[in-house]
């Protein structure tokens, strides 16, 4: 049937830049993309024809929408999609992931690429990885200091480098771990007093040296 063939090839060879290209995706990814689109566009109830515009394979779309209804992400009424609470939460998570990846890979020369990368990676990276990405973003160009060589009153812990298991776990249980914000109140030659999560600790030089911080 020449018509169908033509359309398929047409899509492939004359591919225009589009925000939502759903032709090559598996079910899970398609679900996530639909949710993201609905959340980003902010229109509720969301007309199904809008989605069809971005995904020609209506059979697949149908299957996916059914699945989403089963999972209680959406409810369908009159060709419109209503997001449930669960669906909205999921959609927002995906949208956030997309944004995070986009800004992490942001390249002023070709903005398209970062979006495309985000579209691919957003389905594979876990929330934890995204956090890591964000953290890496912030600390990409920053040098960290050992705490005993640091003079500002506030710091964020970047890394803790203790050899001894006991000390390592003790630090963690006191709230001294990467990401934690601390205040430094007193400094001696050999000791400091730091404020962690609303409690004060006196630590000596050895411990301070093994805590890497950034401003």
């Amino acid at each position, binding site marked *: 049937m020449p018509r169908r063939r033509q359309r398929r090839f047409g899509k492939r060879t004359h591919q225009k830049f589009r925000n939502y290209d759903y032709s090559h995706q598996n079910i899970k990814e398609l679900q996530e993309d639909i949710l993201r689109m609905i959340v980003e566009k902010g229109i509720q109830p969301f007309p199904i024809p809008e989605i069809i515009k971005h995904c020609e394979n209506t059979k697949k779309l149908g299957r996916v929408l059914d699945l989403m209804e089963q999972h209680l992400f959406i409810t369908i009424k009159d060709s419109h999609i209503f997001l449930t609470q669960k669906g909205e939460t999921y959609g927002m998570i995906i949208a956030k992931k997309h944004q995070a990846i986009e800004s992490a890979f942001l390249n002023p020369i070709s903005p398209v690429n970062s979006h495309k990368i985000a579209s691919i990676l957003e389905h594979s990276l*876990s*929330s*934890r*990885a995204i956090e890591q990405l964000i953290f890496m973003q912030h600390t990409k160009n920053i040098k960290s200091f050992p705490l005993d060589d640091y003079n500002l009153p506030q710091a964020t812990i970047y890394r803790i480098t203790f050899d001894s*298991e*006991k*000390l*390592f*776990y*003790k630090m*963690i*249980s*006191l*709230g001294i*771990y*990467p*990401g*934690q914000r601390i205040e430094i*109140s*007193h400094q*001696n*030659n*050999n*000791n400091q*007093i730091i404020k*962690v*999560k*609303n*409690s*004060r*600790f*006196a*630590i*000596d030089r*050895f*411990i301070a040296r093994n805590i890497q911080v950034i401003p």
Partner: protein
Amino acid sequence: MSEQNVALIGNPNVGKTVIFNALTGSKAHVANWPGVTVEKKTGKLGDILITDLPGTYSLTPTALDDLIARNFILEESPKVVIDIIDATNLERNLYLGLLLKEIGVPVIFVLNMMDIASQKKIDIDYKKLAEFLQSPVIPTTAIKNEGIEELKKIITENIKIESEQNDPILYPEELEERITRIQNLVKGFSKNSKNPRWIAIKLMELDEKVTEDIKNQPNGENLLNSASQIVKEDDRISLASARYSYIKDIVNACVKKTAKVFDSSEFLDNFFLNKYFGIPIFFVIMWGIFEFTFSVATPLMTLVEIIQEWLGTIIINGLGETLFSSFLVGGLINGFGSIFIFLPNIFLMFLGISFLEDSGYLARAAFVMDRLMYKLGLHGRSFVSMLLGFGCNVPAIMSTRAIESEDDRIITIMVNQNMSCGARLPVYVLIGGAIWKNSAGSIIFSLYFIGIVLAIGIALIFRKFIFKGKRSPFILELGDYRSPTIKYTLIHMWERGREFIKKAGTIIFITIVIMWILQTFPLGAEINDSYLYKVGEFFQPIFNPLNFGVIAVIGLIFGFIAKEVVVSSFGLLLGVGEGAANLGQLIVQNLGNSPIIAYSYLVFVLLYTPCVAVIGAVYKETGSKKWTIISVVYAFVLAYLMAFLVQLIGGVYF
């Protein structure tokens, strides 16, 4: 009637022991200094057996306190664990709480110190908190006894019901996925494992104890190998971070964000921890405590002497000069008197130290002195133990438990004996007062000073030559300053003093009685022919180079058993009551009437083994016969050498 087991757990200094007292009615020791209550204490609430676990920040197997707590929970399977949380420090305290929930044991959370929280304008929605934690949360202010009845009610209710399995707290998906995989491995390994999820998480954290336990089981190695393929290097941190972010979410939901509040402790720390003023301020405070102890104790000591004499006179008048009355006076009354006379000193010192502890200042003192201690290779914490030694060496040595490093602990214990304890004071006073009269105070201070200097020097030597290497890391939590409650300060004072009396009292009493026997028999003999004298004569030759007479030697021998006995032994031997003014003169005569010899005698008393109770404490804390023997020998040798040195130098200059 079956006993139900309940455990009490929580961070150090959250008021755990106060709550323990409130629940069980017994009087356990509370300190602002973590690590003092390492031993498990138990008490009863009706039918329920409550065990007070050590204060810990988490449940890692590498720290002794944590291990004790964790093992108790895993092995004794308490019906309920009561986690006591400091309301002003929710974020950190909840870390332990999450760990407990992960083990799967039913938990009741107690939100203590609500009074301070409201002072700091911290508003906690504890009902919401209970929802998040899926456990009861009870707000209390233990020292004001608020909330305790409610707590008792909840405990007795919860102990009857069977706990339902709560939903586990979920980690981020990536971690969860791998946890499940390891969980399945664990399930495959041991079909009836009670909590495979917990084991999986522990394996992910590379938990030493769990790893070892599995290794010891058949096929354990396989499980460990497969698991290690799934575990990633920084999983430990990931898990901890996840816990903390979950905690942060809970706290954000349940605690109202407050406006800025005046931080009174930081304000005071500007003063007490000042770079230049910190140490002088500390010495002033210490001087104040010592002045308090020695001066205020005086009338009480006089009182004891008076009572002793008065009782003695009554008995002699009533019964005449019989053997029995001699036994009553010389043995019993003298025995008790020897114990009671120094009690005021000891208790007042403990009162002072308890006051400092409870107010929160003692931790600051450790910090301030740590700068100096560091140069000696010691800890700020060692310093506090040494300070306690001025009251009595026995609790001082027991307090070294708080020092984590083995090396530091042993050095502190060894050196502690040079801290002149309260029991030696009567000897100094007696002999010092006889010779130097008004300047006796300075002489006595010089002895304390020598003790301190030697302690420092020997600590340095130990550090440099015997325990080579740097001292262990110093970390110390500085809690808020609090105004100590009279009730609890007195309770702590009593706790410390009671322990001292128990340990030392019996020995001293028995010693006195033995001494009386040895001195009285053979009957009718002159003092120089009594068994006591013979004992002295036997040992005296050792002390010839030091010019100590037989009576002085006898004093030393019995002083070995308990220092407090030295003065009364002199009294017995010379046939004079203890309080008599000329007792001092008589002793000095026995020491060749020479101030130099008398001073060297005092130095000897200062340095040789304090008493048998101390030996017992040393053995208990070091757990090693070798070190105990070393401590006795080293003390004796040091004392001998220094006394000899004194006479040498004294002979040259005076």
